[in-house]
């Protein structure tokens, strides 16, 4: 049980992060499309931070997502 919660927390953190800083659209996109989109946005973020681009939510990627930072997005227009 706790493991599932932990995984879920990581996923929520990543979703929030990618929505805020990588222009990932909110709301329902249908199962398959949502996960493709998430992997694509994770790759974008890993490329920006010069991490290994895997599209997966590995420890290094999560570690960067938890760091204190500026609220302006890393890509696209800020309005």
């Amino acid at each position, binding site marked *: 049980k706790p493991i599932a919660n932990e995984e879920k927390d990581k996923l929520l953190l990543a979703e929030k992060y990618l929505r805020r800083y990588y222009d990932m659209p909110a709301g329902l996109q249908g199962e398959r499309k949502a996960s493709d989109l998430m992997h694509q946005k994770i790759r974008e973020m890993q490329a920006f931070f010069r991490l290994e681009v895997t599209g997966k939510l590995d420890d290094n990627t999560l570690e960067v997502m938890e760091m204190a930072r500026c609220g*302006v997005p890393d890509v696209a227009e800020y309005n």
Partner: protein
Amino acid sequence: HFPRDLKWKNTNVTFRILNYTPDLRKADVDKAVRNAFNVWSRVTPLRFKKLYEGNADIMISFGAKEHGDFNPFDGPEGLLAHAYPPGNGIGGDTHFDEDETWTKDFHTFNLFLVAAHEFGHALGMAHSSDPGSLMYPVYSYGKGYPLSEDDIKGIQSLYGENPDHGRVKPKPDAPTKCDPELSFDAITELRGETIIFKDRFYWRLHPQMPEPEQTLIKSTWPELPNQVDAAYENPEKDIVIIFSGIQMWALNGYNLVEGYPKYIHKLGLPKTVRKIDAAVNIRDTGKTLLFVDEEYWSYDEEKGTMDSGYPRSIENDFPGIGDEVDAVAYHYGYLYFYHEHIQFEYSYSSRKVMRIMRANSILNC
């Protein structure tokens, strides 16, 4: 830059501080804001005028959670502040998260540094991927002039150079790992990982991680200086000793050990020694070798004293590696000496060089 290279049409920009954080004296906030604008005016024709009423280009405020722009803050840590690109209305406005603790030193989070970054956005700068840039999205503390070459190039391509100001000395950009001339400042093990120090950065090598990860030293260890001369791990005590100048720090993982920094002369080195070039603990013997110019000392970790009969000549005792060392590591009976862009694999038992490689071959280059 932001899309369409948004920028202010003229270089006289106004700002107004709408409210103040209770974390700092008002005068400290005024000073942090003024110094943050000075960072950008030093390298451009931009001039910043403070208003005390009415509408200014850059309206500065502190707020928590939802604070009026539908871009809510998130409580302590995480999101620290944000700013809008140049433009009318909310354009240029800069908001700081009041749920953070704002400081004027290395404790998190330094208001001057965050403000300098946010004003970069308010002037038209977007985020940089260079971890050594002020416009890098992740917070890190550092002293000195905060703009890197990347930052300066970016702002000057929007507003031009500062006509009455000579070149400022930018922070050096992050070192690139596959630069053939790359040399190291220091190298140490840390709980199974290899840490390589260069300028204000370190690479972290983990056996399972194909790519070395580059980070600012101060992002991980704010108390450490920006420049490391030597480092070694004492696995028995699970500590890493970091040397810089005549001081040394002890790290237990990511925490600084109580009572440090200390002077290196506490180890028994003569006062004439002002800097250690390299250090390594030989696990099999319990001795730590300290390399200074063309000589080295042997320190007995068990007794906590220098061995007698030192210093000795590097060239005589380690034939084939030359007479100076930048960094040294020890793995399974081999010493890895680094000098300039060369790495010597030296067999401790047969006392000879087995291989000569480029220093950055350890970084998969």
